């Protein structure tokens, strides 16, 4: 059956993809928002700070300029008297001397700013880090005039930006937390939305499972949503069509088998009456009677298998807790088979939910199969396998070729070993029934080679284990 597999991304579960998309969307939105908010805030805060600092710098510079008119300006006092906005500090440089505010040294001034100011003979500003603190430095070459003996005077002011930086850091933190929360909310919405989105799909999947388990009258509830209504309607139509067809097929098969049952009953009873008088018969008649007996037995079995197949297509199953070990023993007893049975580990006393007569039939069919084509049963094992129980029937026949292993369970197909035996032997229903019944019990059937490498087939029925009683 061709199946569309899609891109690798499409192979993820649908729900994961929906949540992933929501998360990605939220993350991108949050990231963009954070970057823009941070960028704009930073820009405007810095500009504000720059502008106010610049205004003060020029005011201070004018004051320094005017002080230069004095003959011998007392720069130390001047520096102290200059107003300081949020901890700004000043430096005055003459050709050979430098005055600084408290806690500053001449070297604290970046030389590139000094050179730029001296060369440009104009105001310059520079952002740099002083003692690991962000600082905005302004510098201006002043023109001494009047009585001043100085010819080169430059005024510098260093404005700390640490507050701005702290504020920006807090802002960044808040934005990051907000962004993370947004992403989380995105995940949450994705989870919620995908749940809502997938609920119809979940319901459809339940309905489909229920149909697969044999409740063919399962239908989806009508919905108002026009998008879903189309899906629900076509699902229900499909289910109805399938139910119709299955019941029709099943009824046909059951009618046919039913019609075959009455003559079979006459045949069986008549043969028994003859068997009862076996001593009165000639040897030749006895032989003919034996032939008749065998054929009627085979016919009975065929009709029973057909009937069971038609029923397994439709009818509900009996559900009982079945002890697998007891079942296998009882079946061996019933079929007068003395094959050796090995029950391994926790398989002892293991229970399975199901219909014991059908399970017995599964086993009986496997035993018959081994008898007819595999030279007889060599070993039966019942072993645990995880939460499941495996019943294996081994024979010493030619085995089943790997290419035929899934085919032998199809209706009316027979393996190479069976074909060799001629057309008259078996109809190819026995293993089909094994497969159907195993599946109706939530299990499966398979055939493999023997684990010890010896020739022969190993038919394995896997059934889900029921809780302990």
């Amino acid at each position, binding site marked *: 059956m061709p199946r569309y597999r899609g891109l690798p991304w499409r192979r993820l579960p649908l729900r994961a993809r929906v949540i992933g998309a929501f998360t990605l969307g939220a993350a991108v939105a949050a990231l963009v928002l954070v970057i823009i908010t941070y960028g704009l805030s930073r820009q405007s805060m810095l500009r504000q700070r720059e502008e106010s600092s610049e205004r003060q710098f020029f005011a201070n510079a004018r004051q320094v300029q005017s002080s230069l008119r004095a003959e011998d300006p007392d720069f130390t006092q001047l520096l102290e008297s200059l107003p300081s906005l949020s901890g700004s500090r000043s430096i005055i440089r003459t050709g050979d001397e430098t005055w600084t505010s408290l806690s500053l040294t001449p070297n604290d001034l970046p030389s590139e700013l000094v050179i730029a100011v001296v060369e440009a003979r104009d105001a310059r500003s520079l952002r740099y880090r002083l003692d690991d603190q962000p600082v905005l430095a302004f510098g201006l070459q002043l023109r001494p005039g009047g009585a001043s003996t100085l010819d080169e005077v430059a005024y510098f002011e260093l404005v700390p930006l640490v507050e701005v930086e702290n504020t920006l850091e807090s802002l960044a933190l808040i934005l990051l937390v907000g962004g993370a929360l947004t992403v989380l909310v995105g995940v949450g919405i994705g989870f919620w939305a995908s749940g809502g989105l997938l609920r119809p799909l979940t319901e459809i999947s339940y309905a489909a499972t229920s149909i697969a388990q044999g409740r063919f009258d399962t239908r989806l509830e009508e919905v108002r949503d026009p998008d879903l209504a189309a899906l629900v309607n076509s699902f229900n139509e499909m289910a109805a069509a399938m139910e119709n067809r299955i019941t029709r097929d099943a009824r046909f098969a*059951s009618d046919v088998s*039913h019609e075959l*049952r*009455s*003559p*079979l*009953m*006459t*045949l*069986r*009873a*008549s043969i*028994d*009456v003859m068997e*009862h008088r076996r001593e009165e018969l000639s040897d030749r008649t006895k032989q003919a009677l034996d032939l008749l007996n065998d054929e009627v037995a085979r016919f*009975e079995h065929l*009709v029973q298998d057909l009937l069971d197949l038609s*029923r397994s297509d439709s*009818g*509900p199953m*009996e559900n*009982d*807790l079945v002890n697998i070990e*007891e*079942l296998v023993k*009882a079946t061996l*007893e*019933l079929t007068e088979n003395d094959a050796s049975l090995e029950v391994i580990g926790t398989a002892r006393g293991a229970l399975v939910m199901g219909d*014991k*007569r059908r399970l*017995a039939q599964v086993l009986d069919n496997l035993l018959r199969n081994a008898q007819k084509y595999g030279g007889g049963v060599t070993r039966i094992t019942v072993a645990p396998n995880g939460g499941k129980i495996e019943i294996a029937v081994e024979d010493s026949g030619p085995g089943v070729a790997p290419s035929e292993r899934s085919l032998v369970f199809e209706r009316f197909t027979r393996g190479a070993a069976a074909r060799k035996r001629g057309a008259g032997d078996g109809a190819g229903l026995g293993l089909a029934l094994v497969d159907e019944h195993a599946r109706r019990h939530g299990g499966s059937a398979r055939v493999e080679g023997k684990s010890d490498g010896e020739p022969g087939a190993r038919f394995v029925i896997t059934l889900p284990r029921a809780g302990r*009683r």
Partner: protein
Amino acid sequence: MSIRILTIEDDQRIRTAVRFALEDEGWSVLEAETGEQALEYFNSTIPDVVLVDIGLPGIDGFEVCRALRRSSDVPIIMVTARDGTSDVVAGLEAGADDYVTKPIAPKELSARIRALLRRVRSEDKAAAPRSIGDLDIIPDEGVVRKSGDEIHLTKTEFHLLCELSDHLGKVLSREHLLEQVWGYDYFGDGRLVDVHVRRLRTKIETDPARPRHVVTVRGMGYKLQP
């Protein structure tokens, strides 16, 4: 007097073959082609066991069962070509004691008949009368009284009640009951027990929907309590 078995079956070939086979067991076999004929026959003679085919022309096997049950507790085995749940349960509800599926081997059929006959005669087995709540069971006489009034039970129902009362308060599995009451081996049909318990309840319980005496123990079986 030999055991008389009435077979109600519209297919003449089956009727004859089954008669031959059952006569080989030493029983005498009476034949009826339709339900009407069987009921008419019943007015004059009561057989020991009745085999009734479900698919009869005229009144069907279910109706024959119900009609017979109105006047008699004769053991009835339903012979059905369909063993789907609905047919089996409907037949048992109609009053059949057991059922077999066509094509049944005569050996199996006679084993079923023998098990039924054994049940009918097991009253000989002396057992002490017992009182369970408002129920009085007297196995010797095959009588059950509820608050002093006699209740009419079929032999199978009576036997089922006796088996449960033998193990008062203990849970009996369906397998156990199938073996003890119906004489089945491992592969008996649990529905036999379920339907008969249901029928028993309608007779001995004050409120069959909420049984006080015969209690279902989910996944395990049934138990009787006072």
